[in-house]
């Protein structure tokens, strides 16, 4: 089969992990089930209030918060795109790609090889470093992506960055030994170390997927009751399973003190069940509100989870006598739930049921498509990924493989916009800032800047995670802060996140015209030459025609400003 050549390395690893890969879509009952699961409720005649009270989906207009933000902006069908299609390999899919006019391309047409590489780097990484560009050129799309998809790849630079924050990902016992009670230090360390892997790590696709799932199964870090448990959650729940199975990740989350405390499940007892986690499990973590569950389902969901809590030392505990027994039924699942002792196992069976529900498949598929393809996720691709998820027993990698072989992915050049985190991290990577003994300090500085921008890693304050669509981030204030960040990074304002001097390949060469230098900067920082408008802007700054020779003396101290202006370009903010 063609597939073999394309993803040799990945398929090998997947097979070793026992994951059967099935990508070719068949018109079978599975497809129908997925489609049915995603059908939003008919929004014709208004439902009665009492009915809505019992079944929230009757009031649902969209699938989630992010879909509401983009609901008014559905784009017209792309002119150049053919029918949705799967290809046998990544490169083959790239070859068939077409572009629509966007910030990155003035006129639509076939996706060139250079654009395909630029696109892949923009989506799969937090922004390419020069070494990423070189590696992709050397290995080609198939081998490079296969390496990114490897669940066992080593990442020494990422590990080093992570370790620069001493309590990143620490277990509760270590944290309790190391810092004062209720100090947020370990949680901040974890957020900063996460940033460290994003900036310095080589397993970029893994980091992006970690970011998707950390937001999906959100435990706000920092948050009050997470001080000793949230750091470990980031590692043992999200990172551990990000290239594994969602089923396992979900079950780990629902046994982790961080989640149980965050959504008050540790407060539940048999007489009075706190329904916070039971509800969000359905609405946010699995089937979603449009799946049609009822308020009764919500209460039953909370009953099933009751008894799961945490000890004062931050360990998971299941207290049988706090478990609410008695018959439970949620959607199509039910259990006699007769004993407190059996309640934990009953809960795991419930989570298994939810994880493989077609509506959950769509929820997970949507999140990935919104991240990697478009703010308005193409429905056909969501359905295809959902089927792959169900066929592969909730494994995440096969969905990614399908995504990167889809026409929709390769037809979306330049359609996403960087959010603050992606802007800042991609700037640091484009500037190729080096790791070193003071990296921990640099991460701290940039973390607080991101906090001001409203986008510090892991820190969104509610259980639905950061929005992943551009309109939610539309802000003039943020534009100014982003431009300021570009200057701070280009000029090296922060110890541990700087270079003593701009890299040689960003400085003008002897005898350069401004145009030659600007062109090199565009290719190096954005992946393409500046257009006429960008060149005009840069010429305005340097106060000379672009055909003039670079004033080397003045650019000795102003080159950083020119570099920052390239990063300020709307083209750099597209991905």
């Amino acid at each position, binding site marked *: 089969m063609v597939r073999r050549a394309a993803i040799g390395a990945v398929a090998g690893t997947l097979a070793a992990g026992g994951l059967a890969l099935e990508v070719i879509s068949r018109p079978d009952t599975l497809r129908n089930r997925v489609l049915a699961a995603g059908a939003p409720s008919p929004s014709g005649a208004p439902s009665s209030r009492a009915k809505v009270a019992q079944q929230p989906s009757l009031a649902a*207009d969209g699938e989630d918060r992010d879909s509401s933000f983009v609901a008014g902006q559905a784009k017209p069908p792309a002119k150049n795109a053919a029918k949705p299609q799967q290809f046998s390999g990544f490169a083959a899919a790239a070859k068939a790609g077409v572009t629509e006019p966007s910030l990155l391309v003035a006129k639509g047409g076939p996706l060139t090889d250079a654009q395909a590489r630029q696109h892949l780097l923009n989506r799969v990484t937090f922004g390419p470093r020069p070494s990423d560009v070189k590696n992709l050129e050397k290995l080609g799309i198939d081998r490079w992506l296969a390496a990114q998809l490897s669940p066992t790849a080593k990442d020494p630079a990422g590990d080093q960055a992570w370790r620069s924050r001493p309590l990143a990902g620490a277990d509760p016992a270590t944290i309790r030994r190391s810092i004062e009670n209720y100090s947020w230090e370990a949680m901040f360390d974890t957020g900063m170390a996460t940033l460290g892997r994003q900036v310095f790590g080589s397993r970029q696709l893994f980091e992006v997927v970690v970011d998707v799932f950390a937001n999906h199964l959100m435990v706000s870090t920092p948050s009050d009751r997470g001080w000793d448990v949230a750091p470990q959650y980031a590692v043992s729940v999200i990172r551990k399973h990000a290239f594994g199975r969602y089923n396992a990740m979900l079950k780990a989350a629902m046994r982790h003190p961080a989640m149980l405390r965050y959504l008050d499940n540790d407060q539940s007892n048999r007489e009075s069940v706190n329904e916070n986690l039971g509800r969000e499990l359905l609405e946010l973590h699995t089937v979603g509100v449009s799946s049609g569950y009822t308020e009764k389902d919500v209460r039953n969901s909370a009953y099933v989870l009751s008894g799961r809590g945490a000890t004062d030392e931050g360990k998971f505990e299941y207290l049988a006598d706090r478990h609410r027994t008695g018959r439970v039924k949620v959607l199509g699942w039910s259990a006699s739930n007769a004993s407190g002792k059996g309640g934990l196992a009953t809960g795991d069976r419930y989570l298994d049921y939810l994880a493989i529900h077609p509506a959950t498949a769509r929820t997970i598929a949507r999140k990935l498509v919104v991240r990697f393809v478009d703010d308005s996720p193409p429905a056909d691709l969501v359905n295809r990924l959902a089927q792959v998820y169900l066929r592969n027993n909730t494994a995440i990698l096969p969905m990614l493989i399908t995504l990167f072989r889809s026409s929709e992915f390769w037809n979306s050049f330049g359609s996403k916009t960087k959010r603050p985190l992606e802007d800042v991290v991609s700037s640091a990577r484009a500037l190729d800032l080096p790791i070193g003994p003071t990296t921990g300090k640099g991460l701290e500085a940039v973390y607080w800047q991101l906090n001001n921008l409203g986008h510090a890693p892991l820190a969104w304050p509610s259980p639905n995670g950061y929005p992943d669509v551009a309109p939610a981030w*539309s802000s003039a204030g943020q534009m100014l802060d982003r431009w300021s960040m570009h200057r701070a990074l280009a000029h090296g304002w922060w110890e541990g996140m700087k270079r003593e001097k701009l890299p040689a390949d960003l400085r003008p060469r002897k005898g350069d015209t401004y145009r030659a230098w600007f062109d090199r900067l565009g290719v190096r920082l954005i992946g393409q030459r500046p257009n006429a408008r960008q060149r005009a802007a840069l010429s305005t700054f340097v106060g000379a025609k672009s055909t003039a020779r670079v004033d080397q003396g003045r650019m000795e101290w102003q080159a950083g400003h020119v570099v920052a202006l390239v990063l300020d370009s709307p083209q750099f903010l597209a991905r």
Partner: protein
Amino acid sequence: MSRPDQFASLHPDCPDWQKLGPTAEDAALRAQAAAVTADADDREDQWSHGFTRRRLLAGGLGVGVAAMASQLVTTRISWAAPNASPTGTLIVVFLRGGMDGLSVLVPADDPNLLKARPGIAVRAGSLINLQRGFGLHPSLAALQPLISAGRFAAVPAVSTPDLTRSHFQAQDCLERGGAAGSTVQSGWLDRVLQQLGPGTTFRALGIGARMSRSLLGSSNPIVLTSLKDFGVKGIDGVAPQTLAALTTLYTGIDHPLGVQGLDALRASAKAQAYGKQEQKPAKERGYPDGDFGNSLATLAQLIKAKAGVRVATIDVGGWDMHTDIGTVEGGDMTNSLKSVGAALAAFAAELGPDLDKTTVVTMSEFGRRVEQNANSGADHGHGGVTMILGGGVKGGVHGRWEGLAPSVLDQGDVPGTNDYRDVLSEVVMGRLGLSAAQATKVFPDWKATPLGVMS
């Protein structure tokens, strides 16, 4: 200030456009606005469809505004700041998480309250007395001057038309200003702005790190956290050429970033000027620590500088009190209300006479269950409480209230006997001068019945 209906009937290609404004440039911009309005009628999507008529016009006007005009994706043009905004400012404070209305506006005389909430009901003796048997949580004592002046109103049992207990659904419904099955997609405040017509750069303001769903649409709100930081940093010595270069980078781009970038540049230039008028930090001006106080302090600066702010949004999180609502001695509710009350009081005091033209309304996605849970908290419920304060407000407790008897409750919740659209319609009519017909455009398919919250 110019109203949109003055030129709504103008055909964009009509040569009479020069009569639209006092100067050729002003007139050209207004003609441009009319063209965009016409364009918008048949344009479904601001991203991808061509802006052909506008481009055509920009070329034809030839009075040096083509570059600027080509940036407009809305009719919301930045005129010169008016010396005063005749109908003032509406501030919408969204209390995220579902504020427990029964702890804030307490039906103290209702025996069912104590029965359902033995651990957390605020006792009658400690309340600030209001009318109709209601009392206000004592942690809002800072609002006493406003209450005494008849500038504080509250409505119990306010809700969305649907009984959803999902944060996302209820917030989405409130912020879009729709109901189940409604097709409106813009935010309700965006539609208010459309009815208000053109205004200044700061006419729509979101204070915070991100966009409010209620402002989403074509009005290009300015979203910022503070005036002091509202500018590009690190350009000392090269500021003019940097700002000129940024302007070029973001001009003529058929993408939301183009508008956002130019708005940022325009607004920051003005903000610098406004920011200079008040140098003292929020704390020294009497605001409590925290984001809410800082946000109101920023807003007060802009209002006092007459920046032309018409609507502003602020979010305050932390109201999802499944646990530890607490008592008047301590707990989450007491802490949250103290900071909200102190910040609002400082804001009112700082505005002074400008408060006459400023109205603050609070919203929250739902109230909480009548019966407390076992964790001294309450789970998601339905009818909640809206507070309205400032100028133009008719003090007191308004709206229908049927008590907490079991027969009254709706699925165990306070029923939504007062529709939020009635409250907000009255507020936008009273504060911003919209007509009843305009209010219907803000809340489609809804004919508002005033509850008497505005005088």
